[in-house]
């Protein structure tokens, strides 16, 4: 992170946003031209190296992305479902090898066979209709179950629309900032992005920081393979998310709200933009919202393919057009965030709870779940379940209930569940009965709730191969800043690749590597990966150490 670049980018800020220009300039050919990179550097008073370096970081900006016309999902769920070879083969009949790239992940974990052509995502049986898809505007229809185990769902109920958004805004405005914050505090919402940090505390700390400008940023960079709950919210409940953003703005005194939305979710981008347009139409976006004198303007910033942007400091650097490398803390974003101004970064699911809380009260929300893990949590189940889908589950619910009742059990034999994304824990099926869906239960058993996505690892799938995949994911997605993560992930990947070639794993070295990454890494990417590997070593040791 460069303070200079952050401030220089901040001169033009969000309205004439550097990163947006980089992304837009890549649309024609898949990568910005060198001339464009130089022009942008000149315009933003930066070095040519800065725009070049930033562009080279992202999957969909880098030079290698030039001319790509189709992408195959390489996320964990599609990997273990073993569907992608066929997808690639089918695509190869219509595209040259150079035109096919990879994407991680499209959030179609419930039916796999995911790919992207013409800027749209497809999955399930769609690959069988590729010819038709390419010749006409067939939309990427998908099917997944949605249900809740509470009678008055927080996140999956009747979606807000523009009008009910407006009515709720009027109500909230009448409550006043103090009461809104009280309700959020009473609800005791913990961040759903994975870290479980208190939303109310974050808002309050940003509120009391003095500044001429503040920002609200919604982290919609749902990159965890296996997760598609944020995508659901943005596609089905966009007004709830936007309402949460606006309330954060009202509370802390920010007038800009950014939705940083990953490029892999093009449908979500379109739907959320339509919702913003609708809000604009009814006077709920821009200046003098609802005649209250409150100014608040939404903006979607489209990502460009980089998992690490889900880490909040990297995300902020990304919006600034810098290379999204993880920053040291302090300062925290609530003190010095976007363009150096106090900023709240909240996850989609966290913000989406706000309308319900203001409608029903924070106490009602806190009545759901356990004492420390209140409310409900969206859980995504992959295609190994009989009923794949996205379920709203009250915190504290036994994991077995989710697997059996909501998921309907497994289609075929599964040996472990990888819950919480690539940095989550690997839970052998016999441990399912020991777990409840809350932060504490998972932690106590040596796992991690994270974003609560569930990827099933089938019995026949090699654990060594799966761990190689996790190391490779980290190696590919590591920002490269800290030594333990950037070098360690590559050496880990090589160790497990070599193991598949018959090279036994040196357990002492592996333990050292895992400890180095876990305690030495700068952020949760390098620091989080070892958990799942250690789980695997504990429960599937005979598969790994031979």
């Amino acid at each position: 992170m460069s303070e200079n670049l952050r401030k220089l980018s901040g001169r033009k800020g969000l309205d004439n946003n550097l990163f947006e220009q980089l992304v837009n300039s890549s649309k024609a050919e898949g990568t910005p031209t060198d001339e464009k990179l130089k022009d942008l550097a000149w315009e933003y008073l930066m070095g040519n190296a800065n725009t070049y370096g930033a562009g080279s970081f992202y999957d969909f900006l880098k030079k290698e992305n030039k001319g790509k016309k189709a992408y195959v999902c390489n996320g964990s769920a599609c990997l273990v479902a073993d569907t992608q070879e066929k997808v690639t083969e089918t695509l190869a009949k219509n595209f040259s090898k150079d035109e096919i790239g990879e994407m991680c992940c499209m959030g179609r974990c419930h039916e796999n066979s995911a790919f992207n052509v013409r800027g749209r995502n497809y999955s399930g049986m769609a690959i069988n209709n590729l010819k038709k898809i390419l010749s006409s505007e067939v939309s990427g229809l998908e099917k997944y179950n949605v249900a809740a185990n509470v009678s008055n769902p927080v996140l999956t109920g009747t979606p807000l629309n523009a009008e009910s958004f407006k009515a709720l805004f009027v109500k909230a405005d009448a409550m006043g900032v103090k009461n809104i914050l009280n309700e959020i505090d009473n609800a005791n919402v913990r961040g759903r992005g994975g870290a479980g940090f208190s939303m109310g505390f974050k808002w309050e700390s940003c509120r009391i920081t003095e500044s001429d400008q503040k920002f609200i940023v919604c982290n919609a960079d749902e990159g965890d393979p296996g997760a598609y709950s944020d995508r659901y919210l943005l596609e089905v409940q966009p007004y709830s998310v936007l309402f949460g953003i606006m309330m954060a703005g009202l509370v802390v005194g920010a007038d800009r709200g950014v939705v940083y939305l990953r490029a892999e979710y093009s449908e979500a981008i379109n739907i959320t933009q339509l919702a913003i347009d609708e809000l604009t139409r009814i006077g709920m976006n821009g200046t003098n919202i609802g005649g209250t004198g409150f100014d608040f303007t939404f903006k979607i910033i489209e990502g460009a393919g980089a998992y690490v942007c889900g880490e909040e400091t990297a995300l902020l650097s990304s919006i600034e057009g810098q290379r999204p490398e993880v920053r040291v803390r302090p300062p925290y974003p609530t003190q010095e965030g976007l363009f150096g101004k106090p900023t709240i970064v909240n996850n989609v699911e966290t913000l989406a709870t706000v309308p319900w809380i203001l409608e029903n009260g924070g106490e009602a929300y806190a009545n759901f779940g356990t004492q420390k893990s209140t409310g409900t949590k969206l859980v995504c189940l992959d295609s190994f379940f009989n009923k794949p889908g996205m379920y709203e589950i009250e915190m504290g619910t036994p994991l077995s209930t989710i697997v059996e009742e909501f998921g309907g059990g497994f289609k075929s034999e599964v040996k472990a569940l990888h819950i919480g994304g690539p940095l989550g824990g690997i839970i052998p099926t016999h441990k399912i009965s020991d777990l409840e869906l809350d932060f504490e239960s998972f932690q106590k058993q040596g796992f991690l709730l994270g974003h609560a996505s569930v990827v099933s690892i089938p019995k026949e799938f090699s654990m060594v191969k799966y761990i190689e995949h996790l190391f490779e994911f980290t190696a590919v997605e590591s920002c490269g800043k800290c030594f333990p993560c950037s070098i360690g992930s590559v050496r880990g990947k090589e160790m497990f690749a070599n193991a598949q070639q018959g090279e036994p794993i040196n357990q002492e070295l592996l333990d050292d590597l895992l400890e180095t990454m876990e305690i030495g890494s700068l952020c949760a990417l390098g620091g989080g990966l070892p958990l799942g590997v250690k789980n695997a070593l504990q429960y599937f040791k005979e598969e790994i150490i031979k």
Partner: protein
Amino acid sequence: MNNEQSKIAYINNEPFKVQGDETILHFLKRYMGDNPVPTLCDAPNLKPFGSCRVCSVEVALEQDGLTKVQASCHTPVMADSFIYTHTHKIEKLRKNIVELVLTDYPADKFETDNPNTNELKKVALDLNITPDDVRYAPGANHLNRSVDEDHSYMRSDLAACINCYRCIRACDEVQGEMVLTMAGRGFENTVIMGMNEGFKNSDCVSCGACSQACPTGAITDVFNSKTNEVVETTRTICTYCGVGCNLDVAVKDNEVISITAPYDAEVNQGHTCLKGRYAFKFYNHPERLRSPLIKRNGKFKEVSWEEVYDFIVDKLTTIKSENGPDAIAGISSARCTNEENYLMQKFIRAVVGTNNIDGCARVCHSPTALGMQRAFGTGAATNSIIDLNYTNCMLVIGANPTAAHPVTGAKLKQAAMKGTTLIVVDPRETVLARYADYHLQLRPGTNVALLNMMLYYIIKENVQDDDFIDNRTEGFEDFKSQILALDMDKMAEITGVDKDLVRNAAVAYAKAKNAMSFHGLGVTEHSQGTFTVQLIADLALITGNIGRRGVGVNPLRGQNNVQGSADMGVQPHQGAGYLDITQEEVQNIYTDFYKVEMPKEVGYKIPEMFDAALEGKLKALWIIGEDVVQTDPNTTKVKKALNSLDLFIVQELFMTETAMLADVVLPGASFLEKSGTFTNGERRVQRVNATVLPIEGTKVDGQIIIDVMNRMGYAQPAYNAKEMLEEISQIVPFFKGITWERLGTNGLQWPVAEDGSDTEIIHLEEFKRGKGKFSYFDWKETEEIIENGEKYPYIITTNRELEHYNCGAMTRRTGNVDIITEDVLLINAQDAADKNIKEGEMVCVTSARGKVDIKAKISKEVKPGVMSTTFHFPEIMVNLITSDVHDSEAKCPEYKVVAVNIRKSKGKFANA
């Protein structure tokens, strides 16, 4: 209690006091010394970054309690925490990280790396690990990265790069150039230059900050500045601009092998520019003069020192007895030490017996000295560069510090990038102008009109500082009525700057809590130069921006010791310490001190010397280290004047254009070969230490002067910096407390009181002259435009390039000449199109004085009607066309407004 006094933390169970929000590493360093824990990505002049993680420590909330591993470089110390620096767990972590690093580091290089200069090797050996101990199977690596050897100075061998980002951060945080970045992602991250095009093709300014920052020599330079085998390092002061960078000069076998910048230097904090760091090879260049020369029958002949001294003494004595002492003059050198300048003026005054002594300040900042003396009583910067840390607004007038004062320029740019308001008044779109909030791009020669506009709007908008005006100034009411009588529309037309823009800039300057002004030769080298300086002083007075941190009037002095040369009395009207030599009591002071009768009349200023020579009144001239032929305006006239002298002595390093005309050439010594002091632009007197012996055949300049003094009957002990300084401190009032010992490593800012205390900011409570004086001046079109404007409708304004220094005698004899090879003419696309001139074509530029052919460079830096060029190269001799109009008060030439006409060249270079 959150009381700072009581904040304590424990290092390995021992309690220590914590300072503010310091990081753990900072805390450890204060109690455990420079290297309490190993680190690979931290560097003294860079912000905490947290990439290597080798500095990690364990932190517990209670003694020997549960610990958390934290990177010490960026984690603040928690009150009452227990920090463990070398536990088994931490040592293992460090070793394991370094093991990972060694999996992608060339083992053969590690073998030969010197742990004293290679930080990775040092850390690895301390942790007891080498490439042989790496347990990982060979895998992906970057050991085959190519080597970049295309640049004049910079080198990279990225196989040895460990991706610590230090070079990238140095380029950004220290220099602010942002030429370096990572490209790619994760393990594939690679340091690149510009658009991945190597140093040479990138916008690299060769400051070398990256090379100094690199821990492994992956980025280095042709001198291997960080990794070479140094036998001895001597700290001295740079010979180029007035910033006064401290340099660590590495020497082996009496030869300078490289230069780096000390981190503890208050002036430059581990930074310097390509001139200071790399442009030193001139000092032992084959073309260095190595013997005294006497011209006989039009040819120079090498002679002994004895012979040349006899020749000089004989000639000077004859001229003095036949024509009187006023037929002799001296031009001393701002490149020489204070002690040498003091000696030269002493020689001219006390030995020859005339006040005909002047220096290059005449052609650069003489209007500053005079204008600031008139307004404040002291002709020097009111504040220090460190005040940039405390200012809210920077007003830069007629200065291009990123080229001419690179380290200060970098600091200004850094502040502007981070949001400090910047106002630039300049006819050119300089680098700083691009970063400015307000760029007032005026027509050359209209500074007075523009500053009057600013002053008008400050009064009109009622944003002046009434308290300050009432208590600390005089003459405001008259001044105000004259300013308010001005017609802003007319002024806007004269300057060519929109009046609303001027108003907004003026209000921004006035309303800033603390505002600093900086100015350069774009202010002084004008017919109204002194008046412009007085108006800049008016701006500071009217807004109360004097006498505290972050404010003031801060001239950017051009040459390393131009401040010092004036301080030492190299001026025809003031002796050492700025005492007025026409005052009887002053004459008595000098007479008592020098033990000879003092001359009483004000002597010649440099341009007057040339006039006097042409008139036959001046017979002998001794110039030290100044190429007046190439750098003074109207070359033809200068040459004619020099050729009419009976005795012309030039003391030089090289056979310059001026030296060629001399009767006697004396081979002096460069800054690397002598000791003394230089005074930088913020009045800081710093020790210059000889790093090598003078090149054989040359002498230290001060010794040459002393030799002649003694031979002319004045007893002066041999040159010794420390003893000379003792003499100076007895006569220069503001040097009273200065001694060689007290100057220490970072020098002292004058005035220095008897007890040795120095002064960062002057005019704190009152001005040297009592009250600050407001002065009003009408803008007046320069004679150059009035007389020649019609026939020569374009204006050339001269400037400097970063890579070269003044006449280029030094920089043209270094690798810098491979970076910038010639003077060019910056011309706007519209003007070029009008005259059918294309990029790179030769243009014939004519003025009332003469003509030159010069290559066109089409540039947005200049507006239509205005052109710009440099005079670093004798091949072009741009000063053939410059005018000899001078500042009405201080006689500084008007280099900045030259009326010219242009056409495509028909000459022999047309197709060059």
